[in-house]
């Protein structure tokens, strides 16, 4: 595959933490979009549910927005679905024992 030398040089400067943060943002945006599709909601619908503008919703769905926990919680509540789940070893053990 052909690559560009300037892009390759800049790729070397990316920190693993920054890559991970960007990947997480994209995954969250994709998950929100998935849930909206499942529920047949448009960006306009979500904006109305949250009292936000379509532009703001569009930014969230682009995967380039640095979302706060508060925003993620609000969207989860509006969609009535957890957007993110945090796994825990203790919970897994409890489930296995039950």
């Amino acid at each position, binding site marked *: *595959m*052909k*690559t*560009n030398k*300037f*892009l390759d040089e*800049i*790729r070397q*400067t*990316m920190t693993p933490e*920054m*890559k991970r*943060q*960007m*990947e997480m*943002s*994209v995954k969250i945006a994709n998950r929100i*979009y998935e849930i909206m599709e499942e529920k047949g909601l448009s960006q306009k619908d979500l904006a109305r549910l949250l009292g936000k503008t379509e532009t703001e919703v*569009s*930014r969230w*769905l*682009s*995967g*380039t927005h*640095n979302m706060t926990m508060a925003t993620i919680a609000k969207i989860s509540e509006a969609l009535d679905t957890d957007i993110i789940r945090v796994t825990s070893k203790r919970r897994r053990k409890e489930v296995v024992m039950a």
Partner: protein
Amino acid sequence: MYFYYLSPSCKNKLLCLFLHSKYIVTMKHDLFIELLEDGSKVSLYSPRFEGEEYTEFEKFLLQYKDKYPKDVAQIVYRLDIIKRDGAEDRHFRYEGKKRDRVMALPSHLETACLRLYLLNIQSKVLILGNGGIKETTTYQEDEHLNRCVNTLQKIDIQLKRLEQQQVLTVCGTKLLGPLSFVIDINE
């Protein structure tokens, strides 16, 4: 009253139009749409003007990579994600006019309002232009950003014309057909 002057000493074709007290100078520029990187889902191209060493996107990287290293790195990684996952419209911001395919890619954390402008061709090919720091509400209010968008809009018009004639096609993630154009840019 109109007055046309064609200067034979100019390297590019210079057409001066005098209209009453106003004059508009447009210059014709030859350019080639060059392949930067190919990908299984999306390929990256960028226009290179005749006589210039770098493509418009390379000029953008060279201009901003030292002053805004994080923002530039984020934009580059964002392009990597798009190459890997696909170039759906929702990953970008509409920046041009409704009829064109000009879009913007902001830096992820938006620390410096750095914007890259591009054309999204059928979500398979991205033609990366130039960009800059957006400190105005609209790009039209900034001379440099306006020129960046305007250049892509002119290229988009040419591409659409060739696509309609089926002279230029997107095959997989490759542009097939003539990739050399002449566009007018207001100076």
